């Protein structure tokens, strides 16, 4: 064990985007940050990724929209959001006061919508980066097609890159045969970083009523249940691409976060855990610091990808 007063450097860089520490919140699980203002020291976070924004407001799916599953949950929110204009007018003022990075998750029905949206958000004070959701499985016409075909993912990436000078993070769907092919496609298309994973497509049925639990029938599976799949994909992708990777999927504790860093993630996002433990993100920032101290490391970037293989 190392000296107790070792100075610890938690800062990391996602390409052009510098973070004070690697802990972010996952889109759709932290609202627009104001919802957690009393429960989390927001300024202590590396950043927040806000709920996915589309060009126009979307009402979302009819209820029921969520259901609990073993160590996880399914959601079919249907990308309900206030749209770009109200987001900028109503949500950005608070987000500018958070003192942490603000990453806007964007989604669209078409390449054009992504591009127009990216342009619209560029230059808005307080927005530090865009995360492109090409993978949401909830909306029939939504990102699902983009996120499962490498060429389409590349096209969206290019369109967004051309429309903005903000750092562009592309968020991958895990519902594919070859996650590395997807990652390589968006890397080649110019993505500054890759985040993964979005939710796995799942379903739940109420045996008593013989109906699906979700009005949308299928939904996105998230939470600790998916952590092993996420960790595997992050490891595969981080081993295959040169741009930084953000690990997402079932992270609830410091150990979980560290596992993703060891597997090669430069930063991590906490999603579903915000629901059952709103304090999780702050605890993980502190926990990573303690872990590094305990391991005799002085900088979080030194453990990124430091998984020990072989005997």
């Amino acid at each position, binding site marked *: 064990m190392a000296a107790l007063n070792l100075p610890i450097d938690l800062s990391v860089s996602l390409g052009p985007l510098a973070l004070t520490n690697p802990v972010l919140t996952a889109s759709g*699980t932290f609202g627009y940050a104001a919802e957690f203002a009393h429960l989390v020291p927001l300024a202590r976070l590396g950043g927040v990724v806000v709920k996915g924004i589309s060009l126009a407001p979307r*009402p979302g799916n009819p*209820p029921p929209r969520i259901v609990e599953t073993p160590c996880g949950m399914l959601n079919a*929110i249907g990308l*309900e959001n206030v749209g770009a204009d109200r987001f900028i007018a109503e949500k950005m003022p608070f987000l500018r006061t958070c003192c942490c990075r603000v990453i806007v998750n964007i989604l669209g029905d078409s390449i054009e919508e992504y591009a127009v949206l990216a342009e619209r958000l560029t230059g808005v004070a307080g927005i530090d980066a865009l995360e492109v959701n090409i993978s949401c499985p909830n909306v029939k016409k939504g990102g699902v097609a983009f996120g499962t075909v490498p060429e389409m993912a590349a096209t969206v990436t290019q369109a967004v890159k051309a429309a903005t000078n903000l750092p562009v993070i592309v968020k991958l769907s895990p519902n594919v045969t070859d996650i590395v092919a997807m990652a390589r496609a968006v890397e080649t298309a110019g993505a500054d970083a890759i985040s993964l994973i979005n939710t796995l497509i799942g379903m739940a049925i109420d045996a008593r009523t013989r109906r699906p639990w979700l009005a949308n029938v299928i939904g996105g599976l998230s939470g600790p249940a998916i952590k092993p799949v996420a960790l595997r994909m992050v490891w595969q992708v981080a081993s295959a691409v040169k741009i930084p990777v953000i690990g997402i999927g079932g992270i609830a504790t410091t150990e979980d976060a560290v596992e993703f860093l060891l597997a090669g993630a430069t930063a991590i996002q906490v999603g*579903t855990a915000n*629901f059952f*433990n*709103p304090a999780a993100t702050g605890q993980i920032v502190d926990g990573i610091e303690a872990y590094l101290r305990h391991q005799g490391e002085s900088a979080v970037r030194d453990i990124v990808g430091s998984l020990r293989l072989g005997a």
Partner: protein
Amino acid sequence: MPEYQENSIIDTIDRLAENFYRLSLRAPLIASAARPGQFVMVSCAPFLDPLLRRPFSIHRCNGSDTLQLLIRVVGRGTELLARCRPGQSLSLIGPLGRGFNPPPPASSVCLVGGGIGIAPLLFWAERLKTPRRCTVLLGSRTGKELTQLAAEFSQLGCRVETATDDGSLGHRGLVTDLLAAHLPTAAKTYACGPMPMMAAVAQTCRDAKVACEVSLEAHMACGLGACLGCTVHGDGGRYLHVCKNGPVVNAEEVAWQR
């Protein structure tokens, strides 16, 4: 309105009837801030299954350090809560959501509670105990679940009437059957219970042109307005999010037909 994530300590657990428990919890931060109609999200298990917190109305609150929950055991989370022991700690988040809005000064009010929906009404009745007439209509499957609660409302000076499915206490039938008779004198009605009951209360109040607030239920993941999961059909085709727009809403805001 501040919200807290607080480790409460269980003071007592009382079994009021079969599958009906009352937990007294020491939670000074939440108890000091709580208002009637608000709720807390309770972590039921030490590990990851069941994963999500469960929402429970604040059933009573001394305003400084202690609050009570009234819990009906219906599934895994509530079963675990019923098995807790005094001294154990229970993580809460709260107080959450919008509570009941006050009636006109010195007016008469009517509280209608069905089953576990009675839970938030006791806290409200305690706070309402100003010089006003407060009628409480309580319904449940059977009388056992009502006796103690009815007595407690009476002690607060409320006029209590009961209805049970099996006729073992008060009127045999629906609690809504009792409502119409009281509306001529009531300025406002507050209802909490199963959706069909609240729909009937809303309709009756609408017909009688009496203001009505209801406390809604929906499955919740966060209770904080973040997940957008707790949707209910609202008027004009829009969606209500129970944890933020409610749980207490004006009955007119709900699309009861859907």
